[in-house]
């Protein structure tokens, strides 16, 4: 009976297992293999050992630029996104009439396809006649170049990323709903003001959700591609590379955009695979660091704090 149950269990998960092997595990393993080859996708791969990695770390002129750009984007967009998402979630956690409507409209932008969203923001941030510059001008502030400016292009990308905080906000909202109201009632009776309640009740009990959103945010931000690809092609850039131009002074040339360039413009799949493996290892390392250190600041209800 137990064996039959086990068999049925495996049968039920078989479609998912097949999918994850074919569409996840196989490409990852293949990419790892190709990273040690010279491969242009049309001819058989030729084994070259660690040559791609050596070239990447010693001869790639754009490595530093892409790493700096990606770190800039990640280090600002992730904390800012978390703060805003938490703020929005706390606002959405009110028992007000029509709160469902507000929850919907805050979440809707995260449903917009990334390409469509980027194109929309290109219009809003158009330096000539965009909505944002018109607003700045009305307020007596100077117009900005946004995607045409090497200084403002990354802030523009970060601004664009904040438009989609609805998803994280919804997860935070779920976390807030999990916190028993009894704690707040007890704190109120003891005379705690809202700031103290937030600091000593909300935050600690929300740490698992914060941890989840932080990890997902870091993974997503290090892999930023679509917005940089679309905006980088539309912004002023010297290259005719369309989406992979990297924007003015390569200010929007992210690591993933460079990877894409090597894969699909220069037909260097082996080198692009090496870049992908390196990115995977970096994100894995960061995630492991977060997990290892989470014991000191993530509080799971019922578990002793380490």
């Amino acid at each position, binding site marked *: 009976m137990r064996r039959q149950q086990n068999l049925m269990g495996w049968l*039920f998960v078989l479609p998912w297992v097949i999918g994850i092997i074919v569409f996840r595990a196989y490409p990852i393993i293949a990419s790892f293999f190709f990273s040690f080859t010279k491969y242009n*996708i*049309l001819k058989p791969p030729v084994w070259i050992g660690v040559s791609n990695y050596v070239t990447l770390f010693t001869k790639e002129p754009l490595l530093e630029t892409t790493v700096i750009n990606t770190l800039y984007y990640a280090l600002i967009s992730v904390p800012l996104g978390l703060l805003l998402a938490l703020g929005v979630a706390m606002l959405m956690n009110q028992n007000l009439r029509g709160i469902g409507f507000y929850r919907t409209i805050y979440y809707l932008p995260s449903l917009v396809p990334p390409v469509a969203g980027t194109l929309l923001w290109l219009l809003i941030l158009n*330096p000539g006649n965009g909505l944002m510059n018109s607003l700045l001008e009305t307020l007596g502030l100077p117009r900005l170049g946004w995607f*045409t400016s090497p200084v403002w292009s990354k802030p523009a990308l970060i601004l664009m990323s904040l438009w989609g905080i609805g998803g994280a906000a919804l997860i935070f909202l779920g976390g807030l709903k999990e916190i028993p109201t009894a704690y707040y009632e007890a704190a109120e009776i003891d005379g705690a003001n809202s700031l103290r309640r937030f600091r000593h009740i909300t935050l600690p009990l929300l740490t698992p959700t914060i941890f989840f959103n932080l990890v997902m945010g870091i993974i997503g931000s290090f892999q930023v591609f679509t917005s940089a690809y679309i905006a980088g092609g539309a912004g002023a*850039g010297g290259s005719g590379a369309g989406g992979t131009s990297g924007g*003015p002074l390569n200010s929007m040339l992210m690591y993933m955009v460079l990877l894409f360039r090597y894969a699909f413009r*220069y037909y260097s799949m082996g080198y692009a695979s090496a870049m992908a493996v390196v990115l995977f290892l970096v994100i894995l390392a960061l995630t492991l660091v977060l997990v290892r250190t989470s014991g000191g600041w993530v509080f799971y209800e019922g578990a002793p704090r380490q």
Partner: protein
Amino acid sequence: MSLKVGKYSRREFLMVAGGAAVGGLLAACAPQAPAPAEPEAEEPAEEMAEEPEEEAMEEAPAEAERIPVAYWSAWTANHQDVLERMAGVCMERHPELDVTVTAGGPGGGDFHEVLLARISAGNPPDVATIWTGPVSFGLTGALTPLDEYMSVAEFALPDAFFEGSLQCCQFRGTTYSLPHSNQAAAILYNATWFEEMGLSPDPEDFPTTWDDLRALSAQFVEWEDDILNKAGFIPFMPNEYTAQWLLEIWFQLNGGIGYDFENVEYSIDSEENAEVMEYWLSWMDEQYQGDVDKIAASGNWSDLNEESGLLLGQAAMVQAGQWTLSYEFVNEFVTNNRMEMAKLPVGPSGSTPVTGSWPNYMCVPTGAAEPDGGFLMCEAFCTYGNRPWYEEVFDLPSWKDFPYDVLSAGVLANFGEERALEITRWWFDVREDSYPQWNSPVQEFADDTLGATFDQIMHKVVSPVEGLAQAQEAIQAQLEQVLTAAEV
């Protein structure tokens, strides 16, 4: 809640449903069984066969005998209609072909990305229009060489095309695509505004040197604090056309060269090319506050599109390709203003007018199921079948025998018949000055590197000499690496 679904328990129902889902998934992944062969028709009785047999010989090939040819175009779906008309012209001459047109490709990603994936998977279209360098694409093994086909072709013989156009598709004696069109660049200017400024509006009086053009440009420039309200001419904006197309032209206008396709080597860091960069920097400093970002933030100065400074009355002159003259958005401008054209002037170290080659290329991907049919489609599109396209979009034909008196509908609508004829003949003549481009084995790498370098130079991050030297080193090294790998 009931634990039964009909006479089955929920557990049993879920087990059956899960098994059915797995079975369906596995069945969907199974290779398709070949279609059963159609039963052979019985031979008709002799006494009835005579007349029907004669009629059958005169009819077009039956559907089952026609050769299916799949055509993908990088042009998007709004050109589906004209592409199908061109395919129709091909099929009239070759009734044995059954061409299916997919404008914009099948989707699922960038056109060239998807094409590359299908070539590697072994199921590409039989013919495609590409917008990437045919030589760099062909050297990866993605394209079928066309020389053998061309040697016995009816129309697409090697000498049927302008030499420069065909050279864009060739590398060391191998032709990787046919040139559908060969766009040229020139200066478009607002002759009405010239007249208002007391300047001669006639093309004969237009500057033929950079110094004269620069002096003319200065007369139009107007700044309001940090906003550029009016510009004369700005040739040095970093944009999508600069690295791919315009830089080489301006190098050559100054007697230099970027990529020497005959010797397969780059000379980006030559004195003449550095002089071009220095000239542009001094021009920007003199007339445009030395700040390329301020110029970019103030408007669109370097191309002819809907937001072009020329059309909005902000720029007196822009450099653009001739195809822009057939666009509808030009109509309002030319209704109220006289638009004229002039060749790009020569630089201090140059002597010969030059223009470039902005392309559309027709190719037969490697592994095509019907490469013969694919080539016949290439031939049709690039020669006798090009007329429907040309009538819709003013793309300069690469075929020598394309008639001079056919007018593009957009140009006709914008300028009227007499003026449209003048414009057409003018651009057909400018085409003679085209320098072959797009034929480097590292086309895309060079474009990206040079574009980024140019961007750095105009932002004054690096000096022209230093920047061009870095670009030269990187691109030449990449070229040698690719040539070694491709064993050519």
